[in-house]
């Protein structure tokens, strides 16, 4: 009996060892090597594979990137763009830092706190220039003034995203820890619909229209604009790992250029771009109408009134300073952010030359 036990044990140990060795392959290097040309003799330029990690699921929020791919802007720069959708369990910063993606779209708040915790990430371009957050309440809750939120249940997304809301509360004389009951908001607006919360957070390009599309009239809602209150934080930004940028400066510039070109195209050709987006969304996850409004609204955030085409993607110092201040004041980050290091302005500047 012991003989078979011994040999059986040996087999198991060997299997485990093999599995362990296979799994523990060295950290994958970011794919900066050019893809091999299919036939040896032709003079066609080989495309460099670049993985772009989206902040969320495919939707018009990322229309510029999809448009850039469809219109060949990436190809023009010699890039074979691979767009990786995000989702509930995907942390963009982790994907970029461990090489699963070369660049990613994430929020500036998230970038700052990741940098605060040691992740070597930098921003290549600032996509969204204004905060998209609105606080909405049903008229039946009777909250016509922010001060009336006292004692009410307010839901917002946690992690790194609640800080604009905290700043908004303080701006209106409420102590976010004592005067309101802050609860975690999920990915749906169910809590708002079911009256589980009095006030919910909604982005102007997505959740706000989800609410309207469910049959609630605009006249039934009280809406509070966080950007107009002067406490908006910057959102979508293009990030990459510092090492990758340093060793692939040309590639970083090309990717940035292609994406910003894609966004300008998307903003100027919205109907066509929505078609492009719809061909990339998960079946049944959204409607064309929703994507049309999403693109309309996000276009206003990416190229606001008064911005030229060249200014899309630019770093507005005042907005960054405000974002970093709110992050520090409310404890999102423990040390003041070093914006000179966080923002790779040179990449953007070269991209729009």
């Amino acid at each position: 009996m012991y003989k078979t036990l011994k040999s059986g044990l040996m087999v198991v140990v060997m299997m485990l060892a093999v599995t362990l060795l296979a799994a523990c392959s060295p950290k994958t290097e970011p794919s900066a090597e050019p893809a091999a040309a299919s036939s040896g003799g032709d003079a066609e330029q080989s495309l460099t594979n670049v993985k772009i990690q989206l902040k969320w699921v495919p939707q018009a929020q990322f229309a510029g990137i999809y448009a850039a791919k469809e219109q060949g802007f990436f190809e023009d720069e010699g890039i074979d763009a691979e767009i990786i959708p995000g989702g509930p369990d995907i942390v963009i910063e982790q994907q970029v830092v461990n090489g699963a993606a070369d660049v990613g779209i994430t929020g500036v708040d998230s970038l700052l706190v990741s940098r605060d915790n040691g992740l070597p990430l930098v921003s290549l371009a600032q996509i969204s220039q204004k905060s998209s957050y609105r606080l909405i309440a049903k008229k039946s809750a009777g909250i016509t003034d922010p001060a009336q939120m006292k004692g009410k249940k307010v839901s917002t997304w946690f992690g790194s995203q609640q800080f604009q809301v905290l700043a908004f509360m303080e701006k209106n004389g409420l102590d976010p820890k004592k005067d309101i009951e802050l609860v975690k908001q999920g990915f749906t607006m169910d809590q708002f619909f079911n009256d589980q919360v009095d006030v919910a957070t909604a982005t102007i390009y997505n959740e706000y229209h989800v609410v309207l599309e469910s049959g609630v009239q605009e006249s039934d809602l009280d809406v509070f604009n966080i950007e107009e209150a002067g406490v908006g934080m910057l959102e979508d930004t293009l990030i990459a790992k510092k090492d990758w940028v340093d060793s692939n400066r040309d590639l970083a510039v090309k990717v940035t250029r292609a994406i910003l070109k894609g966004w300008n195209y998307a903003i100027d050709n919205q109907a066509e771009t929505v078609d492009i987006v719809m061909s990339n969304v998960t079946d049944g996850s959204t409607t064309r109408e929703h994507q049309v409004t999403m693109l309309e609204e996000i276009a206003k955030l990416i190229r606001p009134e008064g911005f030229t085409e060249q200014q899309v993607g630019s770093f507005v110092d005042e907005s960054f300073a405000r974002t970093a201040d709110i992050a520090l004041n409310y404890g999102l980050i423990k040390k003041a952010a070093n914006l000179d290091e966080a923002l790779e302005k040179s990449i953007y500047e070269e991209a729009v030359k």
Partner: protein
Amino acid sequence: MSEGVVVNRKRDENGTAALPGSASLSGSAVAASVPGSEVQGQAEQGQLVGTARKKWLILRLLPWLAGICFLALWQLRLFHQLFSLESYQLPVPSAIAASIRDNAEMLFRYALYSGTEMLGGFLLGSLLGALAAAGASFFPTSGKAGIAVMSALNAVPIVALAPIMNNWFGDGIWSRIAVVAVITMAAMAVSLFKGLTSIQPQYGELLDGLAASRMQAFLKLRLPHAMPSLFAGLKINMSTSIIGAIVGEFFIASQGLGYLLSDQIRLANMPLAWACIVIAAALGIVLYEAVVLAEKRIIPWNRVRTNA
């Protein structure tokens, strides 16, 4: 078993069922199977007890030594070298300890919260499962089918269950208790049902011969015999209830270890995330050992003997 004497196992503290009918056979066998060691021990008592004691001490300390060794290797960044990791991907034990110290109050509060979910769901689910199994044991054939249907619940993954329970019970503590209750209910039902129905037929026949009612047979025969299965089910449930509570909190929760864990991973605050893992593991071990202790007290005759 020519005399067919029913043994009252509860009275027997030794763990070996002494059957009067075959005492003459087994008794000598038992005496023979304990080799000269006992006799030897008596003779060289002082010396043997000394080395035996030392051996026992070393064996008890070995797991602790291994643990300390593991922690030391981790602190010295062996795993970082092995898997080419950075500090921000895998924090060292000192960073985790510092994080526990800095956030002790919050971690304690959240541990209580998650612990309540674990225990609440565990007790509720185990009770419901036990009742289901007990009820099913009265009707063996249809009961078996019913239990099979219930065990289908086992196959529902927690990640699917959590959002559904959130929808039913809102985002408070009850949704997680519900998640844990559902996953523990099926496991307990299956385990206990097996225990209740795996009785040697001779016992059943005896009680039938004595005109015992179904309830009497249940209380005096099935239930005592099923106690080991009950505790086996409880031990399994304790492990799964920890997973259920923590994973349940990943979805919609505003407090608890699972909530903190998922939040801190997003913020790349790895030391605190790992602190949550450590606290959750410790909580799990403590609760599991509590069940094991309860088992030792309640059914001491079922102690599994090993050659340690």
